[in-house]
């Protein structure tokens, strides 16, 4: 089927190319060679079959053989160019061999085949350069998009939390100025980390844990006994890097959607484990029991987990993952795994 299409394409385009070649060759020769279709008859009889042959040969070389070699051996850079050039030469050799002499490739043509070859090669190189420029522009655009995406995905301090904290500080000022000052200090620490990491992509996990600890201390002021938490030892996380502001949102989720919705509150525990060159960070929390909750609902667009997963993917590709499990109806476990250099 594909071959038929290619043949038909050649039959249709051949006459057009024949016209082009006629125009190309004409000034160079006093006596136009027979294959150059200056007569209607010559044009109709020769150009279409020649076009078909060209089309089929080029298709076999560039549409079948070379893609097969590329898939099989995955050549890169210079090897690709060499392969293309070889294919090109091979195609021309095949064509010279199969197209009968005389009528199509007579003496006059052979004398000028260098000129034809050069023209074709220049055309080929120009098309190649054009394609390469297009690809480069596309790659640049994709890179810019990825950067913009990271920027858009860049988490920030949750405005809800921010304003609630301002309210807490405001309320503490007259009754417990020391606690108010402490809370301002914590919010300042959090803001510093958030501003600083707006520019950087990956940050040490230890920094993220400090940020999460400041966050938890503020939440404790607000939620009191309703919040219990357990954080990992920051000494154990040397060399682990994660996207900026990716740990605290997990804990904030656990508190806002889990613990804060329970009348008696609950516990959130964060653990970090490493084995060899990988790490995993687990956030486990109590929540209201629900039959409708499923792991999928945690990755709805715009959800913090979706954001974190996207950012991990941009940095680590397939080497990182975010998974949600529901070990009991009233507990949620979120696990972030990735490489630890």
């Amino acid at each position, binding site marked *: 089927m594909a071959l038929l299409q290619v043949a038909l394409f050649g039959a249709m385009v051949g006459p057009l190319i024949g016209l082009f070649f006629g125009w190309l060759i004409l000034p160079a020769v006093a006596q136009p060679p027979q294959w150059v279709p200056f007569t209607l008859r010559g044009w109709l009889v020769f150009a279409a079959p020649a076009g078909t042959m060209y089309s089929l040969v080029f298709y076999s070389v560039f549409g079948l053989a070379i893609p097969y070699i590329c898939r099989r051996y995955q050549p890169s850079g210079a090897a690709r160019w060499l392969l293309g050039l070889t294919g090109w030469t091979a195609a021309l050799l095949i064509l010279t061999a199969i197209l009968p002499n005389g009528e199509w490739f007579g003496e006059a043509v052979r004398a000028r085949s260098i000129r034809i070859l050069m023209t074709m090669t220049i055309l080929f190189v120009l098309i190649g350069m054009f394609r390469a420029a297009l690809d480069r522009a596309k790659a640049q655009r994709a890179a810019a998009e990825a950067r913009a995406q990271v920027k858009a995905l860049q988490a920030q301090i949750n*405005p*809800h939390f*921010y*304003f*609630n904290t*301002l*309210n*807490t*500080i*405001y*309320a*503490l000022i*007259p*009754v417990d100025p020391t606690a108010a000052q402490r809370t301002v200090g914590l919010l300042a620490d959090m803001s510093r980390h958030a501003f600083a990491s707006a520019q950087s992509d990956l940050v040490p996990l230890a920094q993220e844990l400090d940020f999460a600890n400041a966050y938890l201390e503020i939440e404790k*002021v*607000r*939620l*009191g006994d*309703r919040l219990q938490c357990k954080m990992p030892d920051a000494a154990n996380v040397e060399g682990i890097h994660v996207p900026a502001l990716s740990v605290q949102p997990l804990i904030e989720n656990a508190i806002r959607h889990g613990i*804060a*919705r*329970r*009348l008696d*509150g609950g516990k959130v525990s964060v653990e970090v484990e490493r084995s060899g060159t990988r790490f995993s960070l687990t956030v486990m929390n109590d929540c209201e029991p629900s*039959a409708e909750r499923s792991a999928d609902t945690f990755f709805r667009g715009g959800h913090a987990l979706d954001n974190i997963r996207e950012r991990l993917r941009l940095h680590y590709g397939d080497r990182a993952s975010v998974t949600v499990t529901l070990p009991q109806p009233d507990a949620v476990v979120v696990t972030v795994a990735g490489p630890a250099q």
Partner: protein
Amino acid sequence: MIRCLIVDDEEIAREHMARLLSAHPEIGVTYKASNGIEVLQRIEDSKPDVIFLDIEMPGLTAFDMLAQLRHPPMIVFATAYDKYAVDAFEANAIDYLLKPIQPARLAKAIEKVRATLARPREEYESILRRALSEFRAGPPAKVAARRGRRIVLLSPKEILYVRIEDEIVFLHSANERFATDRTIAELEELLAPAGFCRISRSAIVNLAHAQELLPWSSGTWKVKLSNNTELEVSRERARELKSRLG
């Protein structure tokens, strides 16, 4: 005196609100609640004219709680950030305050409360109900009922049917019943979006638990539920029930 109730799950925020309100001698804080269930439990004794209500609450959402008050008082929402959540209400003469609450802004809200309270209560109640029904798309996540003196929250899925027994309305789960102060008509309206259907003057069933429709005497039917309870379907409701059961 304007009786007021403060609802906020953070103690610091509650106390702060009470302090801010103490600058207004005409306001008397009758109760401070930390969640919606406490409000449902205490609303009868504290009889507030106005509730200062934080939207984010554990247990029962602010909107589900309001939908379950028989005679909701005037509401002033307080929120740290989600202004959009109360936009729907603002247009309906119900105020909101953004945290941290500024005393001048609070004075304005109290002014508005006073003006509203001067008008007939029914007027305000109907405005609030309309706003709530526009805002709360879909069924409530939880319905409050009583087990003895305690308030429990039932998810509509757990409720098999609602029935009047000795002039008290009961919500029936698979093996327990819970009393409620609401009328059967109110519950019919509240639970209709959750897939409930009125089957007689005295009963509503959860269609998800209806298993069989059995012919009964002279054109009436009985509906059999998942726990084998059989309830009588009145003649005039039978057609609707049949069409809804498909």
